């Protein structure tokens, strides 16, 4: 029961202020101010081109911001590059799965331990004792996350031999292995079948219980968002539309118009 307390202290709030991102003349995000509640799983929804991925890119440092700022907890991360933000605890997955295709599942997951304090390059190269301690620690972390995602049996398979759904899971495992405090997942359920989606949702929920974090999931599937997220942010055409509990946001007429092209109420 003491977990609820740690939720609040470990997982920071993520806040963007007046975030504007431009690609040439095209404004991908305009003046987006959102606040992600700490220690909760938030859904990021909106039609194609709404700017969901761009918002994730902006928070994780993968796109340059024209105006505005990104805050995690009390820290202003705006000036940090993607790597430093990752080290600060903001780790993301990609919409297009990006793996080391010719390597094993285990290698792909272990690369995610970069955030944990690693021995110097020389210590690693020459296999000094600090290296062996790191190896044991990383192997334990990887074993835990592989077990959690049901990938233990595939640990030594090459990832390019795996079905797409498993590859997705490997990427999620890479994100989770270092227990980051802010987790950004870009359509982690895309390409999975109904069963896979449900399973992913329950895994993410379980992970979230074990390692409290502020999690953001871009997702199209309304049911999945409802079952997974306790908070939802809707974007449309690069602008903030609505936020609140899933019920509030999905019940909003504007959201329904933007998302479904019609208001659900008009149908009913």
């Amino acid at each position: 029961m003491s977990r609820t307390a740690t939720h609040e202290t470990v997982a920071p709030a993520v806040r963007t202020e007046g975030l504007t991102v431009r690609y040439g003349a095209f404004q991908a995000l305009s003046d987006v101010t959102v606040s992600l509640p700490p220690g909760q799983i938030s859904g990021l929804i909106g039609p194609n081109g709404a700017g969901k991925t761009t918002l994730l890119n902006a928070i994780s440092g993968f796109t340059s911001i024209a105006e505005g700022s990104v805050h995690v907890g009390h820290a202003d991360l705006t000036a940090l590059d993607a790597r430093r933000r990752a080290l600060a605890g903001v780790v993301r997955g990609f919409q297009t799965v990006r793996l080391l295709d010719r390597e094993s599942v285990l290698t792909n997951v272990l690369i995610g331990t970069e955030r944990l304090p690693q021995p110097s390059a020389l210590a690693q190269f020459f296999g000094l004792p600090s290296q062996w301690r790191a190896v044991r620690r990383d192997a334990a972390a990887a074993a835990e996350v592989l077990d959690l995602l049901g990938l233990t049996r595939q640990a030594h398979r090459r990832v390019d031999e795996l079905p797409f759904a498993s590859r997705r899971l490997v990427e999620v495992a890479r994100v989770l292995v270092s227990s980051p405090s802010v987790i950004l997942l870009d359509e982690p359920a895309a390409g999975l079948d109904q069963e896979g989606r449900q399973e992913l949702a329950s895994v993410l929920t379980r992970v979230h219980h074990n390692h409290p974090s502020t999690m953001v999931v871009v997702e199209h599937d309304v049911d999945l968002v409802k079952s997974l997220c306790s908070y939802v942010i809707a974007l449309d055409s690069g602008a903030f539309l609505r936020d609140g509990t899933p019920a509030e946001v999905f019940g909003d007429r504007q959201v329904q118009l933007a998302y479904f092209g019609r208001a659900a109420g008009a149908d009913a």
Partner: protein
Amino acid sequence: MGDLGQILVGGITTGSLYALFLLGVLIVFQVSKSINFAYGQVGMIAAFSAWFLYSEHGLPVPLALGVGALLAVIVNSAIDYAAIRRIPEGRPGLDLVVTLGIFLLITAVMQQLIDANAHTFVSLGADSRAELGGVVVSLNDGIVVGLTVTIIVGAYLLLNRTSLGTSLRASAEDAGIAQAAGVNVRALRTATWAAAGVIAAIVAVLVASRLSVDAFYMTPFLIKAFIAGMIGGLDRFWLPLSVAVALGVYESLAVFILGASAGTPAVFLLIIVVLALVPKRFVNERNEVRA
């Protein structure tokens, strides 16, 4: 002042050759997103076989040059068709490795077919000189600069003032979208490789006429053209070409001030310093697609 003028003329002429050669690299890179390491050897094929045909087999020089240029076009197009297009997606940098093999192959084959020695080439006006304001200029210098300016301006107009140019730029921007808009991307791509073959032949023949011809002589030119492209950016047009000319002048000045052997270290120093000082954003040419 006369000395300096002479240096400038020499530098601008060499720089023009770098620029013209770089033009061939640029059009291929922009449309195909690949680097052909064997590009210098494509030019070498043209000049070396032209020399072989006219001097060993008595062909008239213009005919020999024509055959050489044709060979360059065929070989360059074949490199694209047989190798570059077959590179599986998601293996960036493989273009360099594969064309490195072709570089080695062409060099060895030409050495085997002709020989490994250096030979004097037809002078193409390198020995008819005139003095202009205290500076000696050869007819060959004039041909080099004139051809370079004509071809580069021609290429610029073609790219920016014609519908063919629009299609080309569209393919360079995004081949998929261009294809969807009805541009025959494959044909255009082949055309750029063929055109680059002609350019390589022209440069190689001009260089041979000023120096001599063998199986290796184009490599230093290739390196200099690549360096200029690297500093100026391979996805731009005027900037890298200007850098190429400037590189020629810089090299001549270094040789003039520091002595005949200073060219190579001066150029190396230049790239190291430029790359260390120029801001990262300015010199990044392969921006990975984000997300």
